[in-house]
């Protein structure tokens, strides 16, 4: 990663709506360089998408989330990747991580209702031939995600003007 790439990623992670011109000014690069670098980062799949962090609890969308610890049998020649691919293919699955420790995959699942989520686990996930066991924990409350604290209202308690 070049210094410019790092600087752009840091700035865009905070606010991906900053204009090319502002990004160029802040990094000391030209607009063309910034545009090229961002294009490259997109092509190389360093930047995957530009999406806001949403606190769904404040919306009227009904949803249930669960973290599922999954134990699987790794497959010959393909290790865990093949089964991970099977799992992340489901629309309900938001994230899948290969983990060290007492289980193999951590799967973050979202469904509109508890019943649908339970059905996903019992009918779709547990029935995969390579899955040997699951342990499901429901998310009760989100405090912080991707570095953003959900409930905190940012207050600047500095004096409005100081010498």
């Amino acid at each position, binding site marked *: 990663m070049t210094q410019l790439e790092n600087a752009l990623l840091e700035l865009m992670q905070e606010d991906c709506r900053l204009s090319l011109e502002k990004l160029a000014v802040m990094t000391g690069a030209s607009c063309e360089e910034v545009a090229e670098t961002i294009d490259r980062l997109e092509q190389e799949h360093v930047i995957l998408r530009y999406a806001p962090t949403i606190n769904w609890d404040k919306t009227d969308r009904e949803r249930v989330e669960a973290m599922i610890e999954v134990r699987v049998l790794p497959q010959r020649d393909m290790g865990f990747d093949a089964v991970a691919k099977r799992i992340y293919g489901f629309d309900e699955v938001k994230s899948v991580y290969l983990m060290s420790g007492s289980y193999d995959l951590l799967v973050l699942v979202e469904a509109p209702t508890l019943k649908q989520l339970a059905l996903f686990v019992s009918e779709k996930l547990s029935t995969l031939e390579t899955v040997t066991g699951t342990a499901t924990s429901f998310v009760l409350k989100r405090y912080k995600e991707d570095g953003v604290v959900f409930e905190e209202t940012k207050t600047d308690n500095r004096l409005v003007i100081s*010498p």
Partner: protein
Amino acid sequence: MSDVNYQRYLNRAIAAVPPSGIRRFFDLASTMKGVISLGVGEPDFVTPYHIRQAAIDSLLNGETSYTPNRGLLELREEISLYLDGRFGVKYDPATEMTVTVGASEAIDTALRVILEPGDEVLIPEPSYVSYSPSVIFAGGTPVGVLTRAEKEFRLQAEDVRRAITPRTKALILPYPNNPTGAVMEREDLEAIAEVVREHELLVLSDEIYAELRYGGHQHTAFATLEGMKPYTLTINCMSKSFAMTGWRVGYICGPAELITVINKIHQYAILCAPRQGQAAAIEALRAGRLNGYEDVERMRESYDRRRRLMVEGFRAMGLPCFEPKGAFYVFPSIEKTGLSSEEFCQRLLTEKKVACVPGTAFAPCGEGHIRCSYATGIDKLNIALERMEQFIKALA
């Protein structure tokens, strides 16, 4: 209402010092809603977590007593390592430094130690609002030395030389500078050192913004210049570099003979800097020494991006703005608007809800300029710039 005439109790010289020019804007801005303030003279970062944790641990350990007058030895040792490692200036923790309640106490005490009635202190202008009053409070006479936009507000040796009289005792050297963001390169300081040598001036080098330098500028500690250490009191603090303004921890380093007397006032008047502030400072400096000053570098990088944004923003709206290479202030010229600094800031605040500080708050020669701090979130800076642009367009 009391019948007592309190005027008869007041020291006239002190009563005559006007309140800070910032005060009026503060009063006005604090009553308004939705104001974006570019008037804040402190970091927008919260003190890094591990530093706060160290203060909490100190409290939980029951460390609630006084510390030695000069500050905890462990802290003085860390300060000594910091100044040496970062700026190559060596001070003995036992005899050549005192930990103070912020750099402000260091300045006040140093001036009280050296000044007698009629003694003159040279102060570059514009600069931080406290120097002149502190000189007056200490019984001395402040003498302003003008710095100019066309010289990027660097202090010129010939201007210093011209201001010297038989009563000149000391020179305050506040670089990187608040409010201009100006810095002094090594050769600029060499020229000043020449004058110091000729006239045997004492230099109060206020280097609290030394870590906040940009665009390849290297900070030179005045005491590292050849022959200057015996003539220098180096003042620094945790506030700006480590985002620790509210902790009130600063320090003053210099020749043992002077520090002993500074410590005498400090011992009688203050006793010691706050204990938990000292505990936090130890953690800040120790961790920094071990991890390459990661926190400081991260914050500096962030300020630097915002600095570019602001300079470019002002230039784009046609306000001349020299590139500041230190601190976190931009000092654009608003002369072409035809408004005075005061009027400009007043109208900008009431019409567009953006608070800046008029250059005149820092000296009469600050007329035609405004101080804008970029220690505020990028989103807010962008909105402030937009509002200012609208304001300027409406004036034209």
